[in-house]
């Protein structure tokens, strides 16, 4: 079921287009990755979803209902430019920001206490943010983002500025929130986190969506019939038999073993390749080489072909 929808959203600022007819569909209880180089328009889209700014045209829906101001209470937002009042006490400002999200003071207090316990930071309650380290402040910031138990969470570059330990924690928390039923949109440059976390993605470049869909499907779409094989006891290996199937490369023969990469032509299938290879010896590994999201990202943005070597 679709949780969030943006249809043909456009937004232009005084001197440039930030979004040009952007449409995205976010499934309920999924993690949606918003990818794109700097200045592509990701943050603008995120701010529009958060109703910080309005679109020039286009429509936005949450569960089929046009986005309106009461939805802000059901959205948790961790902006890219984030911070807290330096001179205010941790507990006080967490309570304040939670109340701005529409939960009562006593309710906010109880929820915050349990989050603080979960992270083992109860004794920070009366400290000021300026007394905390950056990593500590990030934990507080994360709690503030999720304390009102929103069903839509939006993280703009969540991993930037987080140290590896906190980044790992954040990753686990994001997965846990998803399992509990939240829908998550996040924008990032960090492609490894995309492959680990995201179910679907949209790639935005120069204010347009240039690629979107399920992560696995996209990878399949971008696989171009390239396989890697390893064969034991390959005494009868014969290069010429493979030639009609496709282009052979990276051939290595060592100690009676052989490995190679082959890009099959249009008429051949992986099964043809296997049948042929079975005659050479014992097949010890057979793997389709998928492009990484990073490769797809770079090739889509720069327009270059994905290089074979970059695949694994």
């Amino acid at each position: 079921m679709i949780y969030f929808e943006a249809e043909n959203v456009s937004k232009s600022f005084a001197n440039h287009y930030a979004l040009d007819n952007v449409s995205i569909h976010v499934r309920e209880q999924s993690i949606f990755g918003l990818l794109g180089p700097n200045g592509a328009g990701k943050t603008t889209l995120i701010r529009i979803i958060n109703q910080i700014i309005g679109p020039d045209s286009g429509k936005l829906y949450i569960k089929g209902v046009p986005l309106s101001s009461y939805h802000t209470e059901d959205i948790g937002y961790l902006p890219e430019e984030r911070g807290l009042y330096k001179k205010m006490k941790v507990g006080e400002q967490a309570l304040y920001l939670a109340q701005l999200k529409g939960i009562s003071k006593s309710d906010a207090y109880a929820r915050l206490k349990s989050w603080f316990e979960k992270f083992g930071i109860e004794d920070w309650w009366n400290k000021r943010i300026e007394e905390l380290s950056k990593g500590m402040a990030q934990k507080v910031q994360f709690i503030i983002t999720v304390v009102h138990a929103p069903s839509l969470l939006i993280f703009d570059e969540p991993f930037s500025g987080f140290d590896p330990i906190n980044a790992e924690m954040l990753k686990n928390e994001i997965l846990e929130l998803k399992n509990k039923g939240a829908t998550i949109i996040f924008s990032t440059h960090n492609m490894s986190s995309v492959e680990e976390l995201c179910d679907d993605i949209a790639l935005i470049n120069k204010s347009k969506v240039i690629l979107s869909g399920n992560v696995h499907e996209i990878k399949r779409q971008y696989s171009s019939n390239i396989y890697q094989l390893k064969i034991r006891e390959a005494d009868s290996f014969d290069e010429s038999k493979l030639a009609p199937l496709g282009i052979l490369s990276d051939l290595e023969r060592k100690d009676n073993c052989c490995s190679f990469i082959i890009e099959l032509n249009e008429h051949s299938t992986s099964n043809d390749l296997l049948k042929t290879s079975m005659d050479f010896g014992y097949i010890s590994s057979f793997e389709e080489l998928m492009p990484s999201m990073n490769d797809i990202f770079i090739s889509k943005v720069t327009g270059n072909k994905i290089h074979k070597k970059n695949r694994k």
Partner: protein
Amino acid sequence: MKKILIIIRREYLYRVQKKSFIIMTILGPILMAALFIVPVYLANISDQQKRIAVLDETGLFQSAFKNSDKVTFENIYVSYQAATENMEAMGYDAVLYIPETVVNNPNSVKMSSRKDMGFAIVGLIEGTIKQELEAHRLSLSGIDKNVLKDIKVSVKINKYIMRDGEEEQSFSEISYVLGLLGGLLIYIFIFLYGSQVMRGVIEEKTNRIVEVIVSSIKPFQLMLGKIIGVALVGLTQFVLWIGLTTIIVVSLQHFNPEMYKYKEPPKAVIENKGLSQSDIDQQKDVLEISQSKSNQILEGIAHIQFVNILLVFLFYFIFGYLLYASMFAAIGSAVDNDADTQQFMLPVTVPLILALVSLNFVLNNPDGPVSFWLSMIPFTSPIVMMARIPFNPPVQLWEVGLSMTFLIAGFIFTTWIAGRVYRTGILMYGKKPTIKELFKWIKY
């Protein structure tokens, strides 16, 4: 609406709990009370009584010097040298030598003292000698002291304003002070708290918390909440100042009531020291003048419509602040740090400073066309109108109404403009915008 209240509450509580607020709140009344009390106190410090020996060779000054609780004069009849040498032994603080030549050469008077005698006493002595010498010279020319007294007149015009065919007494001095005070207070309030709003906005921007907040509440609501919260802080401080000052002054008067009463010259002194009848009359005159003056002030104060002035003051105090506060907020949103504010502050502060500079002119010409127009323009009206209000005849009702309407319209206008700059500015980091870009933000 409920969320604006949350914002207002935070802004209010956060600022009211700040150390600087508490210190200012306590220090302010102490300074103000000191302003009232220190002069009175100083005037009442009972210095050790000084004893001055008067060596009068002319015989004109035998009873000229009047004793007071600060100084006593005693006539001695020894040589100047003997007197100065034995000054300490005889218990005198100073010896005043008036030689015979004084009638022709007033500068021949000498005084030698063990310590410096201070301005007040020297001034008193000089004044007395001058007075006596003048009287002496007049009598030499055949003019009697009493004749002279009859010639001397003192003029005090009783000013009246004709209104509805009836005479009303006018008290322009009191109006002047009240107008100046009101205008100044509004100026200070706008500057002090307007820049607090600006710094608050800059703080939220540099802390990068603003985007978290505006994901829950509209930027305009955040701006309005902050402005109102700071206004309440200002009002609180104002009320506390007045309250605490009153308490301090009243309690000091309570503990030491003698000090603050008007002192009549002790009658005993007048009667016993064998003063001439004319001297007594003169003293009475002085007393009457000072009493009638203080009565006049009292009457004037009673005549002034304090409730009206206070209500008008509160209106201009609040709306003047609101008009400027939103502009200060917009400036804060456009920059990344305090140092960058200068360029944008100038156009905002020029009308404020203009209003302040024009205060003196307005107070002297409260009904002139310049005063009228300055009290209509919303950017200057809070200060200028406040200066005009206490004067008699009162500013026409329609003028006040029009000025207030303009001010409210001005407030809505600047807040609308400021809101548009603000909502774009708070999300812009790094580059300081140009004025041209600010106009683009308003239009967009």
